[in-house]
């Protein structure tokens, strides 16, 4: 297994730059997830690593060696495609064995490797079937099996679960985590689903407009988003943003005046931002409460109460017209149309400057922490 390093990677299609200079270290034997909205370039980035696209500039290193001149098959990678891309006219066995046959491995060696992969994925009873006789989940396993038999240095997954139904997706997610632990493989996984990213990844790379917005562990991205985009993208339902202006600075806290009235002390280092300038206050639904507890209380009216059983999401319009989402208990008696006091705790808030960058207190500004031990 091996790490992947991207150096100044750029890619243009017909004059449009879709990858705008990416420098990234993908750690060895870890599960790394590229996540971002559609069109952010995450699939292109994966295809650049695979060698299915040639970079316009920059270079890809696997295990420290530049692989830019190598075709996909020689890079020691295996790829699982969104549509599975199984060969329709071959049996499951032949699908998994195809690459090994082309590489002229011995018949016995091929048999052993295919059967080992099939037993890891529990598809042994299906080996003589054709892809069209398999369910979506089974096809997905075979596609992963085809990757495993290649014994690659790096596994690449291009939105492999997006064609499965919700229940199967959760199950395959667990299996992928188990598989990664079992194979101790370097896995790079592309998805647009932040829940998939949070649950699968040791390390998440948030991409937007062909550039890395932030890379770090799931909790790091959740607790210390570097900018508005990451703050809004990670977490579900998304973080609430309230317009505010900077009122005062003192030590590791900044005092902000909300557009709708009220002041709040937030842990932040405003840096170059001067009092009076506009800032954005970010606070997650789970850090608001509908009981009015906290450092600041805003009045609002509940537009919709979404009951999920274990919790309730209240969509509240505040007095100044801004809307926020508030997480409440599953059995709360609050209904739509009710007046509620929304309580904010200053310590749980994030502050963003006019340019979208987080105004982070100096003690956590040091950047990425390493991936957590799993």
């Amino acid at each position, binding site marked *: 297994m091996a790490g992947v390093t991207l150096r100044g990677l750029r890619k243009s299609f017909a004059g449009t730059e879709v990858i705008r200079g990416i420098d990234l270290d993908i750690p060895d034997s870890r599960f790394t997830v590229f996540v971002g909205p559609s069109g952010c370039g995450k699939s292109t980035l994966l295809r650049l690593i695979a060698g299915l696209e040639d970079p316009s500039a920059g270079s890809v290193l696997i295990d420290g060696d530049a692989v830019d001149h190598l075709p996909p098959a020689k890079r020691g990678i295996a790829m699982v495609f*969104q549509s599975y*891309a199984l060969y329709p006219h071959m049996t499951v066995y032949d699908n998994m064995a195809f690459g090994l046959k082309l590489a002229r491995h011995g018949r016995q060696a091929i048999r052993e490797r295919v059967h080992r992969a099939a037993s890891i994925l529990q598809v042994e009873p299906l080996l003589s079937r054709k892809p069209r006789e398999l369910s979506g989940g089974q096809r997905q396993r075979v596609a992963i099996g085809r990757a495993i038999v290649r014994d690659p240095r790096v596994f690449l997954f291009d939105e492999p679960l997006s064609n499965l139904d919700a229940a199967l997706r959760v199950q395959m997610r667990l299996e992928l985590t188990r598989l990664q632990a079992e194979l101790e493989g370097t896995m790079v996984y592309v998805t647009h689903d932040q829940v998939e990213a949070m649950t699968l990844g040791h390390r998440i790379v948030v991409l937007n407009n062909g550039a890395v917005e932030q890379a770090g562990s799931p909790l790091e991205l959740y607790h210390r988003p570097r900018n508005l985009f990451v703050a809004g993208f990670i977490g579900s339902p998304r973080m609430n943003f309230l317009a505010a202006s900077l009122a005062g600075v003192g030590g590791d806290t900044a005092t902000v005046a909300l557009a709708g009235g009220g002041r709040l002390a937030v842990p932040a280092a405003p840096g170059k931002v001067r009092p009076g300038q506009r800032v954005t206050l970010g606070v997650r639904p789970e850090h608001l409460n509908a009981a009015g507890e906290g450092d600041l209380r805003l009045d609002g009216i509940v537009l919709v109460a979404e009951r999920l059983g274990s919790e309730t999401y209240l969509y509240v319009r505040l007095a100044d017209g801004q809307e926020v989402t508030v997480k409440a208990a599953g059995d709360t008696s609050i209904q739509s149309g009710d007046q509620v006091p929304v309580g904010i705790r200053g310590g749980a808030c994030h502050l963003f400057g006019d340019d979208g960058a987080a105004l982070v207190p100096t003690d956590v500004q040091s950047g990425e922490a390493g991936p957590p031990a799993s």
Partner: protein
Amino acid sequence: MGRNIRRVAARTGFYLLVGVIVFYTVFPFYWAVVSSLKTGSALFNVNLIPARPAWGNYVAVFTQQPFGRNILNSVIVASATVAVSLVLAVTASYALGRIRFRGRSTLLMVILAVSMFPQVAVLSGMFELIRTLGLYNNLAGLIVSYLIMTLPFTVWVLTTFMRELPRELEEAAMVDGASPWQIMTRVFLPLLGPAMVTTGLLAFIAAWNEFLFALTFTLTNDMRTVPVAIALISGASSFESPWGRIMAASVIVTVPLILLVLVFQRRIVSGLTTGAVKG
């Protein structure tokens, strides 16, 4: 009650129409079969089924001219045309269907445009070409000239099929280490099978039936293909048309086509209707 009557009438009308169409298409062949079994003046008596079928015409076709040789010529020319067309069309369709390059759609239109020229328009130019190449009165000349009829539609049909094959399939094969040639032969060819059978058969029929080029580009009896040979069957004098022998020859050359179509029937239907390869 009224609705019932209307339904019966509609159904009767439908089967009547089917009957007319079947009669219209099958009758000429039936007439050829019946006529081929008659000799002499019996030809001019109207019998739906000949009382005493005479097989003499079938023997005479082979004894009075090199008809066996003509059939062999047709088989060689048609098979070679199909083989060359398919090899060229499959490789061309891979490029036209899979690779982006400048002028691709123009090239496709030009290929289609080639098939719009009437044969007569290219006949004299083609004749010069064939003679310059030294292929006059040679089966190779026919094969070369038939390609201008068969290639346009084989390329077009196969390009359409090739485009419908998912791109990820090709990429999966690339990751598996397949060369472009192996992607063609091990992944695409098996999937293009039905389309190739269909277009190949159509090309075979076109080459088998072709008359004008075959008449113009051959000189001697033993270089002729079947359609020309049949047209030039002559009787004892120029005032006699040996209808019996002509009909017998027609029946003989129709049978292989019918057999081919029957053998590949299932494939043809699936080739014409389903293009998509659903994994």
